[in-house]
């Protein structure tokens, strides 16, 4: 059942997207990372998979995959916090460019897309079961 495999790639991709959103939310207030730099918001890039198509199925359908996780180039926020250990000489701390509202919307989108893929799985399964009804 190739449609199940395709939906599985969609589920994989959406859960990966959710991981990236979770990372953004968790690091919304990280002033320094392991490299000493301020955390930048991350985003997934989805690419449809054409070559290496799912075995037996239509050669032009191969599902989706997360081809890249990119960093958001928008400017980082600067907060005046003179007492902070990561503050510069003027007392400003560079904060991540994570916008909580945006992350919440992305999260809802990821959750709904995951749900849509699950609906496709359920329908493919129901179709297989309906075909089995012929034998009964």
């Amino acid at each position, binding site marked *: *059942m*190739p449609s*199940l*495999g395709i*939906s*599985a*790639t969609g*589920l*994989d991709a959406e*859960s990966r997207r959710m991981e990236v959103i979770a990372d953004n939310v968790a690091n919304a207030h990280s002033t320094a990372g392991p490299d000493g730099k301020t955390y930048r918001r991350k985003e997934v890039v989805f690419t449809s*998979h054409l070559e*290496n198509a*799912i*075995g*037996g*199925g239509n050669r032009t359908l191969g*599902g989706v*995959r997360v081809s890249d996780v990119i960093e958001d180039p928008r400017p980082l926020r600067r907060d005046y916090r003179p007492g902070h250990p990561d503050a510069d000489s003027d007392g400003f701390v560079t904060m991540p460019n994570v916008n909580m509202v945006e992350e919440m919307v992305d999260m809802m989108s990821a959750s709904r897309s995951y749900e849509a893929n*699950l609906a496709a*799985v359920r329908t493919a*399964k129901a179709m*297989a*079961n309906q075909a*089995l009804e012929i*034998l*009964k």
Partner: protein
Amino acid sequence: MERYMNAINFDSALDAAGKTLREKVVDLKDGADQQGGEAFGNILKGLVDEVDSLQKNANSSIKDLVAGNRNDIHNVAIKMEEASVAFDLMMEIRNKLVEAYQEVSRMQA
């Protein structure tokens, strides 16, 4: 990427199972035509073996999930569902085979 490969693997496994299933059914038909093709027992055993391998595959992924070696619940659930559909298909074919066998065995000489 590894996850994606998994998706491909179980899919091709199911397709392979389906292909062999088709061959078996064709064998059965040919056997009936030529008097004495493959034995009923062998056909059933072949079907059972294929479904068994799918179920073993699903089982090992459940074990991996519980052990924490993987965290893609959806792929495990899909594998379980595929094993279940394959099992249902096998049961239906088995029922048909047994039905046909009984039909023949009831025939008066």
